[in-house]
């Protein structure tokens, strides 16, 4: 979806691909729109398992990491049935192929212990819902950290 008017192309950047994970249909629609407004490509997943399958690091036999897959950032809700966003974060950080991808956690609840444990586990940011456009604009710096998850250099911008 190369667009010469993309807000990324003026810096020579390709549009980032963001994986958004949320069990709420309403919130998936909202986060997708917010990200598209930042000219991102968006894939949504309704739970942690689906997200892991998409990334090729699910537990199913036969899922192999997809070397062609380019995901620049993962944004996930914290409270989800089954696997929480925190558990998803841990699985991503345990993966040799996907651990470099920046992960952002969203939650409707402001719980300091929750925030701290996510940040300690390697989440880039913890954001309170509902998100607005300026929240997502702030995440742009994280989207360009990883050029190619499977063999890229990790450019620290923090």
């Amino acid at each position, binding site marked *: 979806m190369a667009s010469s008017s993309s807000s990324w192309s003026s810096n020579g950047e390709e549009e980032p691909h963001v994986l958004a994970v949320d*069990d*709420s*249909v*309403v*919130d998936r*629609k*909202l986060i997708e*729109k*917010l990200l598209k*407004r930042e000219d991102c490509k968006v894939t949504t997943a309704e739970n942690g398992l689906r997200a892991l399958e998409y990334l090729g690091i699910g537990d199913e036999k036969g899922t192999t990491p997809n070397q062609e897959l380019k995901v620049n950032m993962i944004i996930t809700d914290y*409270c989800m*049935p089954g696997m929480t966003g925190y558990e998803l974060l841990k699985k991503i950080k345990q993966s040799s192929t996907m651990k470099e991808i920046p992960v952002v956690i969203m939650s*409707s609840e402001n719980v300091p212990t929750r925030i701290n444990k996510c940040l300690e586990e390697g989440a880039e940011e913890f954001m309170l*819902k*509902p998100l*607005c*456009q300026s929240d997502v604009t702030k995440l742009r710096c994280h989207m360009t950290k990883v050029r190619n998850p499977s063999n890229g250099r990790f450019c620290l911008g923090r």
Partner: protein
Amino acid sequence: MDVNQLQKRFIDYTTTLVQEGFLDDQFNQLQQLQDESNPDFVFEVVSVFFQDTDRLLNELGKTLELQNVDFKKVDAHVHQLKGSSSSIGAQKVRNVCIAFRNCCEEQNIEGSLRCLQQVKHEYSLVKNKLEYLFSLEQQILAAGGSIPTWNE
């Protein structure tokens, strides 16, 4: 009614809904996400909210009717409803959900049933108002106008 009058009515009505606390600034955020590439965005998100809420209210009714109420389950549904109402700016619905969650924590059946009635009531009010707002949108578009955002 001409386009300008319709647009004014639209703005005035949205302002009133915010002043009366039915909607909060998050609704304005949704309106700002609407553009030519997605002119029905607000309608789409709110429609999804209506469907989702109908489902949740139905589940809540069933769960609270059982002999042994599973309050964890009730709380999970209310948490979802609190989240989605918050995401579209349906403030009164969200506020009832907060009280509802307290009842769940206390394992208070009567309180929970009261909250369910209250949340159904608030939902039905805001749904009617939003449906009216969408009908105004349709009239504006049919008359060749564009939909204003309320704080313009």
